[in-house]
């Protein structure tokens, strides 16, 4: 299981769990595991909504670096 999914992956996995539960494919044995996973995924999704990992310094550095490269290749 992907422990660090993107929100798209997390969202899709969450939807899949919902579908599984909906169709009654889940036994009580799996239920706890699935609910645990779903909780983690929901947490990830909610976290993604309210935080961002973007790093301004990194972007600025990247703009400069790739700019430099571009000049070199000219």
């Amino acid at each position, binding site marked *: 299981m992907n422990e660090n999914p993107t*929100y*798209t992956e997390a*969202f899709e996995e*969450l*939807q899949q*769990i*919902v579908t599984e*539960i*909906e169709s009654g494919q*889940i036994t*009580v044995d799996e*239920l706890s595991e*699935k*609910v645990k996973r*779903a909780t983690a995924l*929901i947490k990830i*999704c*909610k976290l*993604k*909504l*309210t*935080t*961002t990992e*973007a790093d*301004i310094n*990194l*972007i600025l550095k*990247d*703009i400069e670096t*790739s*700019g430099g490269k*571009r000049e070199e290749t000219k």
Partner: protein
Amino acid sequence: MNKLNHYAHSGHCYPELVEKKDGKVIALMKAMLWKNDFYRIDQRFHKILKEPIKDGINILFCASISFDPMHGLSLRIIDIDPVFSLGELEREKQETIERLKREGIYDQNRKVAMAMLPQRIAVISVETSKGYSDYLKILEHNPWGYTFFNFLFPSLLQSERAIPSIINQLKRIKKVIHHFDAVAIIRGGGGDVGLSSFNNYELAREIALFPLPVITGIGHSTNETVVEMVSFKNAITPTELADYLIQMFHNFSVPVKKAEEFITERSLRILKDERLKFHNTMKYFKSVTQHQLSKNHNNIAGLTSALTQQAKFQLLQSDQNIDRNRQHILKFTPLVIQYRRQRTSEIVNRFLKQTADFIMAQQQSVQQVEKHVNFLNPENILKRGFSITLDQHGKAIKDSAKLNAGDTITTILASGKVVSKIEDVLNHRDDE
């Protein structure tokens, strides 16, 4: 009109007029536009075209031609028809649209996949513009706590110079494209002026071909520009653009919330159902076991009573058997003893008789032997006249040869003994 050549200091303009054919200049002439005339014309352009009078447009103008021996032939523009230029601008716009369509890139940006959460936005705007600050305010104060990351790529958004400025920033964004989910072009507060640059082919092309979704919030009330047409989404105003992004977050967050509710509700129900099922099974199990237990209990009780009865019956029967046997023994034992006693006395009698017979026979044979022995007794023989002669050693003499004259011999008779001295010994052979 190729170049307006407006001198801000004097306020006069010296437009450069050209006529082109197949991209080549075939005629060129300088003109003059005095300050007052320019001011009036510019006002009317703003009113009708929503654009200032600018370089590179076709114009229909009224001019006076004068000749000065010093300065030569000159053309003084008195008026320019804004309606004609309006048509020209519209024609330019249509040309851009058709060209993009012809090249198959008109819908290109709309085909780009939009991230599920467009969170990291590369903003092309003017830092101090009202539109940008409105946009930021809405995003930053959204009541759901959604977090956005905006990175400003400052650019001019008005006048002809907006075109290279925006294109340049798009190029910069491309270099760091992996940091972003979407590009937002935000203008605002500038009114409806200077929008014709957004109909420019080069700019529209850059946007149509941009690898990230481009969202526009250019903020005006006139017709949609080509840039807006080719963009992924035209939100029209900066605030609506912000709302659109928030809506995207909603689109993601609402299903998550629904999923959460659904999973909670359904899980609880599954647990409840299972508990009920378990409870029922337990109940059934209990009843079945109890039934089985009581059944076995009854069986054991039945077997116990049967065993007791059977044992009693067996004991009774054995008792009777023993009794019968005792009587039998009592009845038959004396008979057997009597019979045995008879047999024993018979045997004893026979034994006694046989013994007596044997003794008598033995006595007879002893008597006979006695007779015979008596017959042989030397005394009896001696009585009949025979005698026994013994030598000096007391031994019976049977051969005369062993005797010598002079020896003393003893003769035993039936009554008495005679001791003699041998006078002569005659050999046996001599007798013969």
